[in-house]
């Protein structure tokens, strides 16, 4: 059959760059996700720094109004879609198969495709700075996104790259749901899943339900912009409030997509460094699930001033206040976990504890403006950026950083420098409070958010100056972090398999894990199986040197593949083709890209399943 000519053999033991381009090993993909997301985080940080410098004093002219508006739009979009979400994905990739006792994810090639597609979307969005990025806000409120208001390509890049990122996130989410349901080791029942795996599972479900909503909204916007439709065109009967509903029906669950993995990480770290199981495992799991359900009932609290009326505002006040309850349960259970424990404060633990403190402040300020009666004064002031940064920086970023330190020995095989880690922690704690706490004050003193400048004599000078100074403490903190990571990865002392006296399965294998993870698939007897094994409670022998043997014996592993990358490149070209649809021949580039994508999928499906090693003499 001629079609077989497409069945190009899989790459055999590629090395160097090819190894990374064709890898389908979940651990390597996790590292790719993590490094890419961290670079994106830095780019979002540069955008934030420029904004803070502009606001240091009244009436500064460091960046223009137009550039400032692009900066805050890109900062928000970058941090949410290109930094925090993929940092979560990095942990899903690296940690989940190890925690559930699997050798890889359910669909390894789809996993690689998710990463390359994410990278395509990220590159596309960030490159839109060339020629002017979007300036309609990360929330893209109609009609600011209309062609009349915004004729440039920036918005088109924003729309299409978000769609590309959506494909990546959806593919990854399906993959993780299937992995967690089907790839669990024998005995690993759902209620024995480590908390991080549980929160990932819930996050993935939230994501596949939430992303289609913004996909629809973006398609409508695309039709408005490209084909003169009227979804959001008031003059011809459209509605601008429709966009807000669609955006926040996605946007609020999205907040929990960002924070649930963080809560999962903290729920792993606290028990390990307290030598105590998580307090109320079932309650914490349920609280996560309830948050995921209730997360759909609160979206209009982003719209308290839109004029939905006091009845709607009252209802959403109540639902929003109620969602504080399961969140509070988690905080109380974390304190219950360390209570009566044997607490060792090192870098990962310090970051998790810092997370609780900062998230507590963010949670309380969240409840404060959940009350729509008084929120009319805080909505769209600096009080809100203060809140969101306590939740997403003090919350998500602190917890993700905790996770990076916690699993660093596992993925790098090296120990990091504890002193530098603690220095990083204190710089972060001081830096973020100096940066973000004053934003509460200027917000309550009436400073609206998203203004590129402010007049003298409004009473906002001092705290804006302080906030900007805080940024430089944060920058110092991240320099220490980068230095620590690079130095330790290159020349840190070798890490043992179980450096923290861990409780979950990833600590039962060597650091870094062999390609096949577990030489023998473990049989799970209890929650915190590895801990109980070490305590002699599971009637199992503890492997010597904290590893379950490292002898390779005929373990079949899926082989690398070119096609996920090719398919993602096709999507990338097609996406550019949609933005520049009138270039050369109308829509030609989009069609070419789509064709490459199809070739990729076609070849992917015909790729030999068998291990190529079998017929090559090696």
């Amino acid at each position, binding site marked *: 059959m001629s079609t077989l000519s497409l069945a190009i053999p899989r790459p055999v033991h590629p090395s160097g760059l090819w190894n990374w381009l064709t890898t389908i090993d979940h651990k390597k993909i996790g590292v790719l996700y993590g490094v890419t997301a961290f670079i994106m985080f830095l780019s979002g940080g540069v955008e934030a720094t420029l904004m803070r410098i502009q606001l240091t004093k009244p009436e500064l002219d460091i960046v223009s109004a137009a550039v400032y508006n692009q900066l805050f739009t890109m900062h928000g979009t970058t941090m949410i879609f290109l930094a925090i979400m993929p940092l979560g994905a990095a942990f899903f990739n690296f940690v989940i198969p190890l925690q559930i006792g699997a050798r890889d994810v359910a669909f390894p090639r789809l996993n690689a495709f998710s990463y390359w597609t994410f990278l395509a979307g990220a590159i596309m969005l960030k490159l839109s700075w060339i020629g002017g990025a979007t300036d309609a806000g990360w929330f893209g409120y109609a009609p600011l996104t209309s062609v009349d208001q915004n004729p440039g390509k920036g918005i088109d890049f924003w729309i299409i790259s978000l769609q590309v990122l959506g494909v990546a996130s959806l593919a990854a989410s399906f993959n993780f749901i299937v992995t967690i349901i089907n790839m669990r080791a024998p005995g690993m029942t759902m209620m024995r899943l480590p908390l991080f795996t549980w929160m990932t599972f819930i996050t993935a479900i939230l994501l596949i339900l939430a992303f289609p909503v913004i996909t629809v909204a973006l398609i409508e916007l695309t039709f408005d912009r490209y084909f003169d439709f009227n979804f959001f065109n008031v003059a011809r009967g459209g509605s601008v409030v429709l966009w807000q509903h669609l955006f926040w029906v996605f946007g609020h669950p999205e907040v929990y997509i960002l924070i649930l993995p963080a809560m999962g990480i903290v729920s792993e770290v606290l028990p390990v460094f307290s030598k105590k199981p998580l307090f*109320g495992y079932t309650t914490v799991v349920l609280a996560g699930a309830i948050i995921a359900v209730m997360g759909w009932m609160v979206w209009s609290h982003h719209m308290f001033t839109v004029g939905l009326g006091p009845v709607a505002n009252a209802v959403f006040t109540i639902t929003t206040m109620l969602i504080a309850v399961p969140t509070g349960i988690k905080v109380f259970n974390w304190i219950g976990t360390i209570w009566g424990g044997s607490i060792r404060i090192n870098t990962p633990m310090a970051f998790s504890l810092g997370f609780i403190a900062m998230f507590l402040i963010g949670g*309380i300020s969240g409840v404060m403006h959940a009350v729509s009666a008084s929120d009319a004064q805080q909505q769209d002031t600096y009080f809100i950026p203060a809140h969101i940064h306590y939740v997403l920086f003090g919350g998500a970023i602190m917890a993700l950083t905790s996770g990076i330190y916690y699993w660093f020995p596992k993925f790098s095989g090296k120990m990091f420098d504890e002193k530098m880690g603690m220095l990083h922690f204190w710089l972060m704690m001081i830096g973020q409070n100096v940066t973000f706490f004053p934003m509460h004050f200027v917000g309550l003193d009436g400073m609206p958010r998203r203004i590129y*400048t402010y007049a003298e004599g409004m009473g906002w000078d001092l705290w804006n100056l302080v906030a900007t100074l805080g940024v430089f403490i944060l920058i110092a903190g991240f320099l220490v972090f980068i230095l620590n990571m690079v130095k330790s990865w290159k020349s840190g002392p070798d890490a043992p398999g179980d450096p923290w006296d861990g409780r979950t399965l990833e600590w039962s294998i060597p650091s870094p894990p062999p390609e096949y993870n577990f030489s023998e698939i473990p049989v799970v007897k209890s929650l915190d199986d590895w801990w109980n094994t070490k305590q002699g409670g599971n009637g199992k022998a503890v492997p010597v040197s904290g590893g379950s043997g490292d002898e390779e014996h005929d373990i079949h592993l899926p082989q690398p593949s070119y096609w996920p990358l090719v398919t993602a490149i096709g999507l990338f070209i097609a996406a550019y083709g949609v933005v520049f649809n009138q270039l050369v021949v109308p829509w030609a580039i989009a069609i070419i890209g789509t064709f490459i994508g199809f070739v990729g999928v076609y070849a992917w499906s015909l790729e030999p399943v068998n291990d190529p090693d079998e017929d090559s003499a090696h």
Partner: protein
Amino acid sequence: MVTMKNRGVFGSVFINSSRTQKIVLLLMSLALSVLAAGCFIIDPSANQSTFEPLGPVAERQLTIFWWILIGGAVVFVLVGAALIYALVKFRRRSEEETPIQVHGNTRLELLWTIIPAIVVMGFAIASINTLFYSANVPKDSEKTITLEAIGHQWWFEFRYPSPNGPENEVVTANEVYIPVGIPVRINLESVDVIHSFWVPKLAGKVDMVPSEGNHMWFQADEPGEFYGQCAEYCGTSHANMKFKVIAVEPAEFDTWLSDQAAPALESGDPLAKEGAGIFKDAGCSGCHSLKTIAKTGSKGRVGPNLAHVASRRDLAAGMMNNADGAGNVNDAYLQENLRKWLENPSEIKPGNLMSSQAAVYTDPNKTLTERQISALVAYLTSLK
């Protein structure tokens, strides 16, 4: 003993107390210093501070905020104290110790589910009254006035029903007079994107959404000048979209309204007369009207109505101040500001329509000369 005396009461108490008591004392002093700091970090006298309500709506909104702030502070201190206490008390002392493996406590967990649920519900329900109160002018008000506020990129149009019939609506911009002690209903609209109408000292904000027909109300309890600013991101010059509410005694308000309803005065000054000619010939009047223009058309409403521009305390939507400390327009300030604006409007308000669409700024052959600018300034300054 001597050193202990020098440490004062607190110091000696601190030294003599147990570890647990020390923690509690530390936490108490921390909470006190946070409260003390709170007294100077927020400045209620700041122009847009929400901590100095000067009308009933803002007042009730602040009351709610205080309650929830105190509630939040209590939660923060309690949970923070538990966290710090646990961290100090349960620090690892030896590597060998293994704490009791407690897996949970159903009663305790139920407790910290139910109590917070009751507390947050209490707050939510207690706030609903204020929510409804701030939505509509109280029905028992003896007298109310209604006016319209319309958002434009990046200025506010205000329209008052005129004493002399609908064709004589009073139209002004960026400055809204209201009578003291009388509830004012404001109907909110927008001609382009979403804006938000906010005067922190009088009431929380409500968005101006195209074709949604929102409304709000407020009342000023005493005469004064209140700062307002657009609160919803609305494009390039969102930061430059401000206005003022000026509350005056009802009698003064009536005088002001009839003054504004009168046609613009024509000045006899030759330079001003020349300016009047330029105003027509250079195309200014295409967007800026000097009389009432019906809301249905856009001609003459693209830019602010200038019928009485020289009576306004600010120029360019709160960007430049024309008034002295007492709120009286100073002609010298006004002239300087007008000149600055006419010379380069995009420097004051980046992205504004005038600099991108008016022929005198886009067509190099029609650029305003120094003389023309002086004439326009003289003319506009005469429009009291």
